[in-house]
């Protein structure tokens, strides 16, 4: 098998896709979280300010999902096919929520009527919250595994997905994104909305810490295959340590009102959480609990070495470009939100 820097191509591609989805979780995470908090703001100007805080960037953030989806399709077609067809209903609901969210942001400001704005506010808040929940819900199901047959076809039904663990991970991702979004909003706002958000930030942080602790205990006690890697190689214990320190640092920076540092810390939390899940699963991507031999791994689901090599070149050119103009856009819209005639 072809390797680059001592790591084989499927593993490289696993890392690339992992990085893209981590980027997606950090970036879309804050705007989904900001959306899920939307109904906590009562005044029209507050809602407009909150919406415009993510206005110029949410679309660019969502691109990471598109890239991740395409990368999964290209790199691990078996996983893309099995995962999406297995999770047919959750993904359909996910897609419809994405549509509703996009059009709510887009349409809200187009009419001045109160009922119109209220309707889109509710739709924006619910769809954002639902998306934040579903991302965790699907991740939770992937983490515990789904039954696959020898052709990697899903053999189960919709009811299998609705299990306490997946729901718990869903709640955790919702709380994580709400905290992440609240920290982002607090950086972008001023005056009374800012004051209100400093309170919301604390509450969402508490919400996150509670869900995080419960989910962690759940995992430790009941899902052995999600802890055995760290269990077997104590060196990796550094990861949960970083995680806990990062969470502690969020509260510390919030107390000091250094919100940029708090935001970076919550980005670290998101990254480490996904790194731990990926490490524990690797080389498996989709685990089949009853028949582990049928699991999809980076090796039995990957595209040809040729394609992976091409795609690594594409990623090597593309990712720095995307990072460059993402930075440029964020830099252009840096600082507090100013509503003007181009705003939503």
């Amino acid at each position: 098998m072809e390797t680059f820097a001592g790591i084989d191509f499927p593993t490289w591609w696993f890392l690339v896709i992992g990085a893209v989805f981590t980027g997606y979780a950090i970036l879309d995470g804050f705007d989904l979280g900001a959306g899920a908090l939307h109904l906590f703001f009562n005044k029209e100007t507050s809602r407009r300010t909150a919406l415009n805080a993510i206005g110029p960037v949410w679309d660019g953030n969502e691109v990471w999902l598109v890239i991740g989806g395409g990368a999964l399709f290209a790199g691990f077609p078996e996983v893309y096919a099995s995962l999406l067809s297995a999770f047919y209903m959750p993904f359909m609901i996910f897609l419809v929520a994405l549509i509703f969210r996009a059009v709510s942001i887009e349409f809200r400001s187009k009419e001045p009527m109160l009922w119109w704005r209220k309707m889109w506010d509710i739709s924006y808040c619910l769809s954002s919250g639902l998306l934040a929940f579903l991302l965790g819900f699907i991740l939770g199901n992937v983490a515990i595994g789904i039954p696959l047959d020898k052709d990697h076809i899903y053999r189960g039904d919709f009811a299998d997905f609705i299990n306490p663990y997946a729901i718990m991970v869903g709640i955790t991702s919702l709380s994580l994104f709400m905290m992440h979004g609240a920290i982002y909003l607090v950086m972008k706002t001023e005056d009374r909305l800012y004051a209100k958000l400093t309170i919301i930030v604390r509450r969402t942080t508490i919400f996150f810490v509670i869900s995080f602790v419960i989910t962690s205990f759940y995992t430790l006690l009941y899902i052995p295959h999600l802890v055995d890697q760290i269990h077997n190689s104590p060196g990796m214990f550094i990861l949960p340590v970083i995680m806990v320190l990062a969470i502690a640092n969020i509260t510390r920076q919030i107390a000091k009102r250094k919100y940029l540092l708090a935001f970076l810390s919550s980005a670290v939390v998101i990254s480490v959480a996904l790194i731990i899940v990926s490490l524990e699963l690797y080389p498996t991507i989709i685990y089949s609990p009853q028949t582990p031999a049928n699991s999809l791994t980076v090796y039995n689901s990957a595209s040809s070495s040729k394609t992976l090599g091409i795609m690594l070149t594409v990623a090597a050119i593309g990712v720095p470009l995307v990072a460059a103009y993402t930075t440029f856009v964020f830099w252009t819209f840096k600082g507090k939100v100013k509503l003007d005639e181009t705003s939503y």
Partner: protein
Amino acid sequence: MDVEILSRIQFAFTIAFHYIYPPLSIGLGLVMVFMEGMYLRTGQEIYQQMTRFWVKIFALIFGIGVATGIVMEFEFGTNWAVYSRYVGDVFGSALAAEGIFAFALESGFLGILIFGWNRVSPRVHFFSTIMVTLGSMFSAIWIVVANSWQQTPTGYHIVGEGMKARAEITDFWAMVFNPSSVERISHVWSGSFLAGAFLVTSVSAWYILKGKYIELSKASFKIALSVAAVTSLLQLFTGHKSADVVAHYQPAKLAAMEGHFDSLKAADLYLFGWVNKKEQTTTGIAIPGGLSYFVHGDIDKPIRGLNSFPENERPGAVNFVFQTYHLMISIGMALIALSLYSVFLWWRGTLFDKRWLLWVFVWAVLLPQIANQVGWYTAEVGRQPWVVYGLLRTSDALSEAVTANQVMFSLIMFTLVYMLLFALFIYLLNKKITHGPYDHHDDEHSPRHMEMAGSFTSEHPTEATPAPRGKDSESI
């Protein structure tokens, strides 16, 4: 209904709906580049006003295009798992390249295009307009490359057998430049330019007829008409090239497009007609031997007819393919006639004197849309029964794990959501057009209103870092 027909309906419906928007984005993007370019060159406010107006409409179109486009990316996996496994190595690469090279570019700069008017210099804004347009055009490249590979697969080999068979890339550039890529990309681009240009001429003609924003509308109309005139001719050329490719690589599709059954006979070129599949006859007005002439340069040379293909290797809906194909061509010709005649009047200096012509332009916005849609129906239905031509049948490409009930549920859901979306789109488009290009009556959005509402709290230049410092005491 079974999973196959439901999945096909759902895919056809979601892609057809999606395809209303990207061509408009691409075409409108190009027209906006010219408008803003004129602003930078001449410095005349009117060009900036029109660019700002069309950017707002662009934002609406783009938003729905993105929302419905993400659905497409995941629908391959949800409904066509076997297909996804089969083509992932090839098709997935094109799709991933689209995401990273094209979609990221357009979505990244979109923020500046829409919200950046007061944040960046006119040059940087113009640059962003160009980047968004280029991004949308690159998007089309990769998507059409992927689809063209399905029509004329090259640069791959098949690994494994039966259910385990997969197409794998052997030559990336041969896959990208498969025999139909270049022709079909240019054809799709031209169709998109027409869609965007005719939207602008439609709205501008309506304003002129209503006696509103006359100067601005005339200037916009001329820019869009120039784009329309050039691309309608380009479309004839790229269309002819695409038909050549079909004739060479997909003879069954060509035969269906012209309703040609008998392999021993020379083939006619129909202007319009009706195909009776049972009787194997096509009746209508035709140029005798016309198709033979186009394909072979000889009106007497026979063309392979549908009869020479086994029943299960030729498209079933022959009349549908025939009708959609001919409708596309008729519209293409009508657009050429309309735009060239208007350019002639422009040259004569009487372009805006004929009210009937302006009314024709008001409604002509629908024509490129219809042509783009039916053109794709021809391409996709004409490829049947294959999803990857000659390699994988549509009926074999489904998800095994998905049941008819699930697809029925999602199909109903998409139908309802898209109907709502379309109604909102038309309503808001109409509203924006009625509102017009000027903002001073719009209290909701004017800076003065915001100032009164107390939102402008700081007149200071924006801080260098997003983290707030030292403002805390007064806020709590």
